[in-house]
């Protein structure tokens, strides 16, 4: 009988590595170190990974520009665009679903805005709102199909990925005869839009006189969007009811439903969030390059998933973090730009990325095991 065993082995229980069912466990209440709770956070592996990769490139590419503000700005810019997506995708994946359609939503919502503004003379603002409406509707449809049919979101959004990509290519070619569109900077409202989506901050320093030449970097505002969204997502996830519902919906939808969580609503909102993030990336790209291309965003859906997984989020849902996705995107940016600084041909980037994904998954599994293994 369990109770008897526990009473017969009081000393064996003190180290708390092996609790047994039994009544008296007051002596174990005090045993929680703050360090342990930090070391078992989902993003801890990615945080160390980020530092390690930064040090690596600081050594191999430090004198070719990786450490300069200019170099820092380039990998932060790459990280920001992926990171905006990854933060939203992290929430969705913690909620137990995938969204492969975001890549095509980027291309489509950017093109919708450009078409309306350039071809039809809408003010840029109205055009951007229309594109946002489109993205949110797509997100809603993705979510509604998934929760209604119970089909895997992987398949549902794979279908919408192709439908949207095909439809926007077809439509754009019908209207303009081409698949890309420029001159967005000549539309009404471009200046304000540029300030919001594409401002660059020139930061210049001579490192307190330690360097002979002045170091300058041009940091895009997308970095602020990225960090702002990440902070918001983290707050929602850890400090709001909705965040608790996301974990519940991903961890066990049936159990969450049984205690009253509106699981379907949560999932639909999460699909709309990833669609929103895709729209935001589209805005940043179209305004920055003053043009749209239907093929923009291709492959981003997979890079976002990779960043999220590197960040410690479980593929099966119910566990993960938005901060982890920030680290994942940062690693992506550092490696992508770092190998250029290191003088390696950029063709090799995908090899690095795949290898890192594998390593990250192994490390995260170890961390998660420590955090959640039954300590019996």
């Amino acid at each position: 009988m369990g109770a008897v065993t526990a009473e017969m082995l009081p000393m064996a229980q003190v180290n708390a590595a092996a609790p047994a069912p039994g009544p008296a466990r007051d002596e174990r209440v005090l045993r929680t170190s703050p360090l342990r709770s930090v070391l078992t956070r989902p993003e801890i592996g990615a945080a160390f990974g980020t530092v390690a990769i930064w040090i690596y490139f600081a050594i191999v590419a430090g004198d070719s520009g990786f450490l300069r503000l200019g170099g820092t700005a380039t990998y932060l810019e790459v990280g920001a665009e992926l990171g905006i997506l990854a933060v939203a995708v992290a929430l969705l994946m913690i909620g137990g679903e995938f969204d492969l359609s975001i890549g095509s939503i980027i291309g489509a919502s950017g093109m919708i805005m450009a078409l309306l503004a350039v071809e039809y003379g809408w003010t840029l603002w109205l055009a951007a709102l229309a594109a946002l409406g489109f993205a949110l509707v797509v997100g809603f449809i993705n979510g509604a199909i998934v929760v209604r049919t119970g089909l895997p979101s992987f398949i549902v959004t794979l279908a919408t990925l192709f439908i949207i990509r095909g439809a926007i290519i077809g439509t754009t070619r019908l209207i303009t005869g081409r698949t890309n569109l420029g001159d967005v900077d000549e539309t009404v409202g471009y200046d304000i839009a540029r300030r919001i989506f594409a401002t660059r901050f020139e930061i210049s320093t001579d490192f307190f006189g330690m360097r002979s030449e002045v170091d300058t970097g041009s940091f895009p505002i997308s970095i602020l969007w990225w960090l702002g969204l990440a902070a918001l997502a983290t707050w929602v996830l850890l400090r709001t009811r909705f965040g608790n519902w996301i974990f519940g919906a991903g961890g066990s939808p049936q159990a969450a439903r049984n205690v009253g969580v509106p699981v379907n609503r949560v999932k639909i909102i999460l699909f709309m969030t990833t669609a929103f993030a895709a729209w935001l990336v589209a805005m940043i790209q179209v305004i920055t390059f003053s043009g749209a291309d239907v093929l923009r965003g291709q492959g981003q859906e997979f890079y976002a998933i990779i960043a999220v997984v590197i960040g410690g989020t479980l593929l099966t849902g119910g566990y993960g973090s938005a901060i982890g996705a920030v680290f994942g995107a940062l690693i992506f940016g550092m490696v992508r730009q770092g190998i250029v600084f290191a003088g390696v041909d950029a063709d090799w980037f995908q090899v690095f990325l795949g290898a890192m994904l594998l390593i990250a998954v192994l490390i995260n599994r170890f961390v998660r095991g420590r955090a959640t293994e039954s300590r019996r």
Partner: protein
Amino acid sequence: MSQPATPSGTTSGPPLVEVRNVSKYFGSVVSLKDISMSVHAGEVMCLLGDNGAGKSTLIKIFAGVHPPSEGTMLVEGREVKFGSPRDALDAGIATVYQDLAMIPLMSVSRNFFLGSEPTKGFGPFRRFDMARADRTTRDELAKMGIHIRDTSQPVGTLSGGERQSVAIARAVHFGAKVLILDEPTAALGVKEAGVVLRYIAQARGRGLGVIFITHNVHHAYPVGDRFTLLNRGRSYGTFRKDEVSREEVVSMMAGGEELEQLGHELAEMAHQDREAGKEMADTGRQFAEEARAVRDEGDRG
């Protein structure tokens, strides 16, 4: 004894919850057929029956998980249709599911308050009051004699009994009117099972209606006021405690099988009682006294 009994609870009036002639089909599987059952305030209704008899399916109708395929459900005399478990919870019906419905990767206090999170702040700054959730969780578990090391540890790291205690403490905390417990004592040690039985008696004393499913006669008989027997999806009837003996309850739980076999079972149970169940017998006696005390208190109040 085949006549459905009148309520023995302390209050009169319509039952807190009631189902009339409900059936439940899963495709071609007939899980429940033409079941009627009710729970009054201040009453413990024991739901008995073999594995697969349909007990869990029936309580899931009360809990809003399944809509009945046929028949009606009433809360305090008014007909209701629960669209989701949320509706049942809002009606004051809290349930401990047989599979516990806990999420292993989530922390104890997050699980405890999932779906009913306390908040502080206003408007867009309304947030999950984690400090209060942690405190309440710790207090409610301490009341059950469970002292969790750390309410932020994942539920998956708890022992089966601890997990069950969390689920029960949660239902007790949120069950305003009706408490439904689907085999709550299954994974518990003798002492913890005693605590749960005491909880059931306390809940009855406070005027709650309790639906209690168990396969253990030592747990069912002392707390039960009425016993409803299900067999292969059909009801054999509802019996008041003063109409049936413990042995008859055992026979009911065995699905009304032949007396000879029952005799064997009883002999074996008595044997177990003697050999291994001294502690159990003590707890049972102690509990019976307590139940009587609570009952008397309830009668006076």
